[in-house]
């Protein structure tokens, strides 16, 4: 360490505050009046959490709000999710009947179209 810093640290050793004559009374008065301002302050949510947990909780909350926002803002049909809705959007009614929605009652016309497709050309 260079001499400038050494001199600075030596100078710092001399700089000391002494307690004033009423310091003890002030401390005792604070003790009598109950917990200090610092201690009495109602703990907020960040005071309750240990320091290391704060970023994790913040990220988790952000993700939670993002998911909630997507759920609320994106119109999704009740019977199918976002991915299904995206995949299904390009299907023709025939393809939809075959691959995507086998439970739904198929139209007679659609059945006939499919049967015609399978019949060998004469």
């Amino acid at each position, binding site marked *: 360490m260079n001499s400038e810093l050494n001199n600075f640290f030596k100078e710092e050793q001399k700089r000391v*505050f002494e307690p004033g004559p009423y*310091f003890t009374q002030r401390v005792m008065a604070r003790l009598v009046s109950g917990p200090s301002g610092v*201690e009495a302050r109602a703990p907020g949510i960040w005071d309750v959490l240990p320091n290391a947990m704060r970023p994790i909780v913040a990220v988790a909350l952000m993700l939670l709000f993002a998911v909630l926002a997507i759920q609320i803002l994106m119109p999704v049909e009740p019977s199918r999710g976002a991915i299904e809705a995206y995949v299904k959007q390009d299907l023709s009614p025939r393809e939809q009947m075959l691959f995507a929605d086998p439970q739904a009652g198929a139209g007679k016309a659609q059945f006939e179209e499919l049967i015609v497709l399978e019949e060998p050309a004469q």
Partner: protein
Amino acid sequence: MNFDRELIVRAQAGDREAQESLVKAFSPMVFRLISRFFRSREDVEDLAQDVFVKMFGRIDQVRPDENFPGWLQRVTVNTCYDELRKGRRRRLALETYGPHEIAERTVQPKEPEDFGKARQALQALDPKLRIPLILKEVEEMSVEEIARTMGITQTNVKVRLFRARKKLAASLGSVKK
């Protein structure tokens, strides 16, 4: 030391006289330690009060055979660390949102120019590095004492001291250029 032990036992039992005697006995040490990190008398006195309020709030945790001054030093250094961190956050916010000359305000005008630069460089250090450096260089504590006071390992103290000195030298070097 026996006197201290008896005082602590009485203070734990709620004896006001013993509590007063403890404040009187240990306030010079607490003031001296806080003076190493804060330059205004008001700050030092406020923090010293906080330290004693914390001390009495946790005095039940002290075993009479424990090194009481060492425990109190730890409480004091932790209180200073919390305050320095808060101050650093405030200062960063000010530096970000308001172009005030914060560093100049914290330096007393009477001291030599070199000391002003050294102080600025020291204040720019993260409290995690500043505290062990000040305890070593100004309080002349050993690495073992610093480790005990800060509640970290001796290796960690050495690493922090090394980093603090390196950063200090770098910032003083850049000031000279």
